[in-house]
C-alpha cells in the first residue's frame, strides 16, 4: 500500500507556544488512521496545518508524493482532500440537499459553467444518493439548522464525501452523538472506506469508537508523536497510559 499522505516534521508555533513540534507520519491508501491525545496536544492544529487553514512554521506535507504545503484549503479540496470540523459546520439556512449540492458543486465544471449552467450543477441525483446512504431521506428538504445535533453531524460527514474526496480528515465526528446514531455513523464510514477505498484520518476522544474503527492509531502529546501502531499495541503502551489513557 502506498502512502496517500506523507507528513514530515511539521511544526507550528503561536508566539512561544509550540503547538505542533515536529510531527511526521504517513497515511496509507485505504486505511483509517486514528489520532488521539489529551486536549491541547496539537491534534486540531496539525489538521489545520495539513489542510492549509494554517501555514506551518516548518515541515512538509505531501499528497500522492506531490508537495502541497501552503496550498489553500479550497485548492486542496479540489485535489481530493476534505474535512469536517470539531464544532459542527453545516449551513443552517440551506436545506439538507442544498448543503450537499454546495459541498459538491465546486468540483463540477468551472466558474463560467457554474454561472450559466444548471442550478443544481447536475448534483441532485448524487445528493439524493448521499442522503439515502446516510439515512436522512425524510429530512432532505428541511433547513439543516432544524435537524437534531446528531443528524447535523451525519450531514456534516456526508458533505465531506460529496466532492468525491479520497482523503477525509474527520475532527471528532462522534462528539455529542448518541450511541445508536454513533453506530450508524461508524457503519457508514466503514462502508465508504470499503466501497470507495477512501482514506480517513479521525481525531476522536471516544476510545471505543477509535479502537474499533481504526486500523492504526497515532497518539500525540505536547505537540509530538508519542506512539503509533495497531489499536491493541497502543492501548498497552506504558507511555500512552501515562499521558492519556490513565491508569
Amino acid at each position: 500500500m502506498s502512502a496517500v499522505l506523507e507528513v514530515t516534521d511539521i511544526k507550528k508555533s503561536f508566539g512561544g507556544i509550540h503547538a505542533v513540534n515536529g510531527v511526521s507520519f504517513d497515511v496509507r491508501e485505504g486505511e483509517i488512521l486514528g489520532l488521539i491525545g489529551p486536549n491541547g496536544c496539537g491534534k486540531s492544529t496539525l489538521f489545520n496545518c495539513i489542510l492549509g487553514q494554517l501555514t506551518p512554521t516548518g515541515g512538509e506535507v505531501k499528497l500522492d508524493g506531490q508537495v502541497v504545503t501552503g496550498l489553500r484549503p479550497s485548492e486542496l479540496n479540489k485535489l481530493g482532500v476534505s474535512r469536517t470540523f470539531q464544532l459542527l459546520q453545516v449551513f443552517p439556512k440551506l436545506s439538507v440537499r442544498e448543503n450537499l449540492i454546495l459541498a459538491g458543486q465546486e468540483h463540477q465544471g468551472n466558474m463560467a459553467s457554474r454561472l450559466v449552467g444548471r442550478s443544481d450543477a447536475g448534483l441532485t441525483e448524487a445528493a439524493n444518493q448521499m442522503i439515502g446512504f446516510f439515512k436522512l431521506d425524510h429530512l432532505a428538504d428541511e433547513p439543516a439548522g432544524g435537524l437534531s445535533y446528531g443528524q447535523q453531524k451525519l450531514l456534516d460527514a456526508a458533505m465531506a464525501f460529496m466532492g468525491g474526496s479520497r482523503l477525509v480528515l474527520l475532527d471528532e465526528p462522534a462528539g455529542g452523538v448518541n450511541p445508536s446514531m454513533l453506530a450508524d455513523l461508524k457503519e457508514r464510514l466503514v462502508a465508504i472506506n470499503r466501497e470507495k477505498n477512501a482514506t480517513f484520518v479521525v481525531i476522536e476522544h471516544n476510545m471505543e469508537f477509535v479502537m474499533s474503527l481504526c486500523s492504526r492509531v497515532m497518539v500525540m502529546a505536547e505537540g509530538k508523536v508519542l506512539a503509533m501502531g495497531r489499536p491493541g499495541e497502543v492501548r498497552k503502551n506504558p507511555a500512552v497510559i501515562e499521558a492519556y489513557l490513565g491508569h
Partner: protein
Amino acid sequence: MSDFAKPLKIALGLAIVAALIVVPMNFNRYGLFILSQWAVMSIAAMGLNLTLGYAGQVSLAQGAFVGIGAYAAAIMTTHGWPLPAAILVAIVLSFAIGWVLGYPALRVQHHYLAFVTLAFSTLAFLVFRNESWLTGGIYGISNIPRPHIFGIATNKPLPFYYVCLGSLAIVSLAVWWLIRSPWGRAFMALRENPLRAQSLGVDTRRYTLMAFAIGSGLGGVAGALYAPLTQYIDPVPFNLSLSLDLLLMVIVGGAGFYFGPFLGAMIAVLLPEWLRFTEGYYLMLYAIAVMLLLIWSPTGILGILDRYLAERRTKAASALRAVAKSRLETVQ
C-alpha cells in the same frame, strides 16, 4: 396547498408586472418621476443586496457606484454616445472598480470593512466635486439627453419610465438567475461560514471579489439610468447619504431576500411622498418607524413573512409526525 402555491405566486407576479405597466399611464409627470426613481433605486439596492445580503460583505460605497455610473452616462451621452453604450461602460467601469474594492474584504470584515468602503465613498465624492475638467465640479452636468429606443424617443416621462422598468425587469431576471445558480449558493456559503466553504472547495477569494464587482456593477447600471432620468447631475446626490439610504433600503426590505430591495426602495422613495402631509415631521416619523421595525424584526419586513412561513411549516411537519406516530401506535 403547495399544489396551488406556485400558480398563485406566478399569477400574483404577473398581476404586479401588469399593474406596473398599465396603472402609471394615468400618472402625472411627478408620479412617473417618483416611480422611475423607485425602479432605479431598486436596481442599485439589488446590487447591494447581492454584496451584503447574500455574500455578507458590508459596503458603504454603493452610492459611489451609482455616482460613477451616472457620471459615465452623463459624460458619454452629452458627447453624443448612445445610452446603451454608456450603460455598458458604466457596468464595466463600476464592475472593475468594485473588484478592486473587494480586495480589502479579503483581509478585513464587518465594521472594519464598512470603514474601508466609507473611505472609498468619500474619495469618489471628492473626485466628482473636484475634477471639474471631467465632471463639471459643483456645477455638474446638465442637458443630459434621454435615449431613442428602437427609434422611439423617450423624452416624455412615460416612455422613459418604461425604459427604467424594462431595465429593472432585465436586472431582476439576471439576479434571479444568479442567486439560483451555484454562484448564489457559494455567496450564501461565504456569508454563513467562509471557513467551511473553503474546505468544500469554494474559492472564497474569487467569490468575494465577484460579489463586490457584480453588486457594484448593478450600482453602475442604476447610475447610468439616474442621469437621463434627472437630466442634470451634480456631486451632492452621490455623497455618503445615498450609500446609507441604499443600505437602509436593503436592511428594511430584508437583506438576503430576493424581494427585499424592491420593497425597501419602495418604502425609501414613496414613504416620504405619502408622509408629505405631516410636513416637517416626516423624517422623524420615518426614523421612528425604522427603529420600531428593526426592533421587531431585525431581518427586515420580509423577515417577518419568512418567520411566519417557517412557523407554519414547523407546525405542519409536527402535525404530520404526530399522525405518523399515532398510526404506528395503532399498528403496534
